[in-house]
């Protein structure tokens, strides 16, 4: 903020109060968005349950990724 040293003490106090209020509102908005994101994730619980199923394919894909990763590292 420019020329902060020129502002009156009252003005500084009022700016601090405003900033604190804005900060509070921003935090509330962030929390609200986080809750909405979580609720939306839970709405798709069936999909998450499918994603969370164990399959040999997961291990196979992971090992394939590891092999590729190692090859890439060796080539560079």
């Amino acid at each position, binding site marked *: 903020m420019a020329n902060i040293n020129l502002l009156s003490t009252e003005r500084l106090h009022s700016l601090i109060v405003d900033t604190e209020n804005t900060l509070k509102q921003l935090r509330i908005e962030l929390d609200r968005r986080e809750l909405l994101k*979580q*609720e939306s994730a839970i709405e798709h619980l069936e999909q998450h349950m499918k994603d969370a199923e164990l399959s040999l394919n997961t291990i196979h894909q*992971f090992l394939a990724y590891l092999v590729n990763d190692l090859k890439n590292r060796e080539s560079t």
Partner: protein
Amino acid sequence: MSELTSTLSTHNPERTSNHLSQWLFVALLVYLLICAVSIIGGGFKMAAGSHAEELFAFASNPFAGLVIGTVATALIQSSSTVTAIIVGLVAGGLPVSVAVPMVMGANIGTSITNTIVSLGHVKAKEEFSRAFSAATVHDFFNLLSVLIFLPVEISFGLLEKLGSLLAQLFYGGSEVSMHSFNFVKAATSPVVSNVKYALQSLGDQTGGIVLIVIGIILIFVSITLVGKLLKKLMVGKARQIMHSAIGRSPISGIFSGTLVTVLVQSSSTTTSLMVPLAGTGSFSLKQIYPFTLGANVGTCITAVLAATAVTGNSEAALQIAFIHLTYNILGVILIYGLPLLRYIPVQCAEWMGRRASENKMIALGYILGVFFVIPSLCILISNQFQ
């Protein structure tokens, strides 16, 4: 509108009857599970006779018992199956003191499932870091729990005493005990007796071993099918429970984790479910941690249920089931209750997640090390000192 009404009226009865038949199937599978635990107990008693203790002498070393529980669960991918088998073996004469470390090991072994599930997120670095942390927080909690309770158990037999006290409440000398009104046992004993009778012609040893194998297969099949069915039937209820826990205290998260696990009859399902939720960034590690702890408690219901109707040494069977329950409840109370210990698993898991996302070989080394290599080394070392 009338079309909708007619569609609903034609489809609802079908859906209801389908649900009803699925619930009946669940009830049948639970009945089968209880029978199977008794069959294992009967088979073990038949095969081992009075030598049950000698037969499991190799597991009298607590570390060996711990490793057996860990590796068996990691291979079968179900702690409920392993604890139900342990309950059956205890009913057949396996000493409770030998079974306690096995039950602790089952807790460690079960966390391999969600760790493997987290490998599915390997392609995105940040996502993998979050998912791997979400999976390993369960491992670190269970490892810390064993580090605390195994030495206490070896020194004082705390869990054995607590389990015995709780079992005595049901089997105590009072007139109104489980013996006097156990309808489930009355319903399962004809099946168990008939299976035993049918295999008696094979002789005590062969017949007993065949009974144990049949029991293990039945437990595995029934728990797997019950898990699959309940997952389908209970997804709506689980969603409701999780919705109500959002934005609330961690205690509410622990209760929700317990409830969801009781509903789906599998801690692996609950903890694996947390992996994509954390991986996508919807939930932070600290938010899913209480759910994971609740899963540990909720999974004990299967063994307690099976132990209430088991034949043979029923009191000891109920004792080991209660030991599993008290161990998990005490673990949550102690580790989550003490601020000093509370976030150790979270910190370890965050560190491991970061390291594994930077070098994926660490993830592979971690899984092989924690679930197979270190347990095998423990057995080798403990055998050297026996």
